[in-house]
């Protein structure tokens, strides 16, 4: 699924990485526990989370995850965005709850990692 489709489905704002919205994503993974994100082998993932701090970006960096979607209207700060840009990431933000976000994307055909 393309990033721009994902953004449309859940009515998300593209906070950074507008130039990369044609990129394809294979799987979605939702977690607020970063250690669980760090157990994944798959890399073409969108990380859907309500945990909004620098460690979310760091975790994605270490796990080679290029797209992060913040649910529950969480807004990344400047430091987070800078780090995301340094790592060529796409950051999306939606007002929807994590449950609704995941539900809509699953219904639209985005695959789970497991």
């Amino acid at each position, binding site marked *: 699924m393309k990033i721009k489709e994902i953004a449309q489905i859940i009515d998300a704002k593209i906070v950074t990485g507008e130039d990369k919205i044609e990129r394809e994503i294979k799987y979605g993974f939702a977690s*607020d*526990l*970063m*250690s*669980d994100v*760090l*157990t994944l082998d798959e890399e073409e993932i969108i990380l859907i989370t309500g*945990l909004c*701090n*620098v*460690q*979310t970006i*760091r*975790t994605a*960096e*270490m*796990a*080679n995850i290029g797209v992060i979607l913040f649910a529950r209207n969480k807004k990344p700060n400047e430091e987070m965005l800078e780090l995301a840009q340094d790592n060529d990431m796409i950051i999306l933000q939606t007002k929807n709850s994590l449950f609704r976000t995941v539900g809509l994307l699953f219904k639209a055909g985005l695959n789970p990692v497991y």
Partner: protein
Amino acid sequence: MHFEYNIIESDFANAGKASSEIKKTMKQLNIDAQKIKRMVVAVYEAEVNAIAHAFGGTIFVDIDSEKICVLIKDSGPGIENIELAMQKGYSTASAKVREMGFGAGMGLPNIKNNVDDLDIKSEVGVGTEIKMVVNFI
């Protein structure tokens, strides 16, 4: 190639900085992407652990053509029961660590899964040494 980084107690804002530097260096050396990921995931977990639990320490990195070895030495408080700490779900993390998205007792098991060699030495009141190796060949 040898380099070192300092770890400052409770310096949560900088957790992951050393891991990020190590990742960049490994990339520049054209090391296999999977091996880079395994090493940096392990180092990142260990770095978060050291910042969260230790009174500061040092990360020593050695890279040669055969392997990368990362040693993290801290100056206490030490782990009372390493076997228990290695168990999934066992944690002594503070609320602050949990707010960061860690502290669920997954760190050490995650580290073990990612490295080829893991050696942990710890003495209460003295400190902990965690040595992690990923082989290239």
